[in-house]
């Protein structure tokens, strides 16, 4: 299980960083989204979730972390998800505005000159 979660976080983060470094705004936004998924999973995993131990208090069970999962990381993930969601919306709006204004989706606002770079990419 640890291996599955760890590799999922790793793959998401790696794809996110790859997309983040690309030159088109759409790829960059997708990259940011993937990166924030990776982060959410990482924080969630940092709370050491265990099967069968929900973070809800029950009668007759001692109130220690031995009997429950830690609820705090789940609250943190909730905050992080909301913020990442809002930020994605902001980037989409900025990207659309940039496209409408500059007529390109290149992150530098202008198409690179292919000849100057030795052709092709």
């Amino acid at each position, binding site marked *: 299980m640890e291996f599955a979660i760890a590799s999922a976080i790793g793959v998401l983060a790696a794809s996110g960083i790859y997309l983040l470094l690309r030159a088109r705004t759409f790829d960059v936004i997708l990259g940011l989204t993937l990166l924030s998924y990776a*982060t959410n999973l990482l924080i969630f*995993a940092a709370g050491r979730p265990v099967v069968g131990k929900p973070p809800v208090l029950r009668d007759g069970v001692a109130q220690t972390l031995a009997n429950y999962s830690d609820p705090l990381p789940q609250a943190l993930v909730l*905050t992080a998800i909301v*913020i990442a969601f809002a930020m994605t919306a902001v980037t989409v709006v*900025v990207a659309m505005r940039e496209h409408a204004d500059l007529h390109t989706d290149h992150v530098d606002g202008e198409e690179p000159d292919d000849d100057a770079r030795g052709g092709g990419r």
Partner: protein
Amino acid sequence: MNHLPVLPVLVPLVTGALLLLLERRHRMSIQRIWAWLGMLAMLAVSVTLLVQVQREDLLVYLLGDWPAKLGITLMVDRLSALMVLTTTLLAIPCLMYACAGWDKRALHFHALFQMQLAGLNGAFLTGDLFNLFVFFEVMLIASYGLLLSGARGARIKAGMHYVVFNIAASVVFLMALGLLYGMLGTLNMTEMAARIAAAPPERTMLIHAGAGLLLLVFCAKAALLPLYLWLPEAYARAPAAVAALFTVMTKVGLYAILRVYTLMFGEAAGPLANLAWDWLLPAGAATIVLAALGVIGAPRLRIAVAYLVLLSAGTLFVAFSLANPGAISAGLYYLAHSVFVSASLFLLADIIQRHRGSNGDYLMPIASMPNKTLPAALFLVAAVSIAGLPPLSGFIGKLQLLNSVPESQLAWIWAVILGSSLMTIIGLSRSGTRLFWRIDASPSDAEAPPVRRAEIGAVLLLLAYGIAMTVAAGPVLRYTNAAAAQLLDVDTYIQTLRQTDPQIREPSP
């Protein structure tokens, strides 16, 4: 219970929400009145906070009266109170400048401005690392709005870079928080400090990784050497009043570094003690050199000013990473000074830009400028101050800093700081000569554009802060000395926090 520590966040938050409601129905003048009422309340709160913190040393406020290990705490020490007052003092002239006309053209300006202040103040006051992240986001979201409202063309492009860069940095911040929480089981900075000092050896490596990621984030916000590329363009494209307010944004990153790496990874942190300073010292020095070159090479006045902001950030990195009380104290004095003076230069650059008409603030085509006397005189005062020439505040800050460099590193730090000052003088004299001096004696046919009294007043007020800091250098430096000494005394923080109990709630079993 004393509710003062939460007011610097609440006052702008409530004012901002109120302004958002008002702007639908009411004229601009009503909005301005409420914005100014909020600003006055903020000033009263910041001054009271500063007075109270001198009397009581450390104020701890438990939000919602939850015990410190469960809930969020606000901690006000001398450093926080100083930062809050600096922000408020900076915001007053920015608002003054914006009220001269910009606020009519930017959508939601007043509401976003207050939200930005709430985020800034919250970041300075909070004692909880996750809460610091949240206030960083509040501040950044407001700044996106301020930067992008009504933006076109080049400003949108600069805005896109700024937004994406900051979101990526925030994601890394969250990763660091996840790692540190997993290892330490708490997010209260003071409690984390105590647990880092007692951490078992098998956990140090991951804590170290978390600390490194955190350092990366703060350096990105504070624009340290390889992470500064977003800054000059974004600051040079932002509207003047907004750019002036942004000068305090890089200082938030510096504040966070100073707070986290003295409190959590300070002398007492065992194997992780003082891990940041060895990295920051050379990187800060390299930032100073590059920024000084940027000041000389800038094609536009506002880009030169953006590099001056960078230069002051580099100087502060050097000051803080020396990590002795004298250098930190000098750094805090220099921080307040550089915020005020670079803000005044941003405002001046905007005034000059409008005076020169189509030539804007480009230095190269030498163009005539009607009514140049007043802007030129103000530019001279600001330039003298930022370059660190006597008798103004920059000189006192740099002198104190040079004075507290330890013997062993004396030669190269002095060389870097003094060399950068010389390059700043060269760069600014070159700009000044091109803008004001080598221009036609005959006034051009274009009539002078209106420069409103409030705009000149805002610049004068910012420069007056600098002069007041020069005149009152003694008391200010005494205060920053006390702040630096307090900052390095980690045990007091831990004890004060652990002794603070909820007052209404029953203590948990």
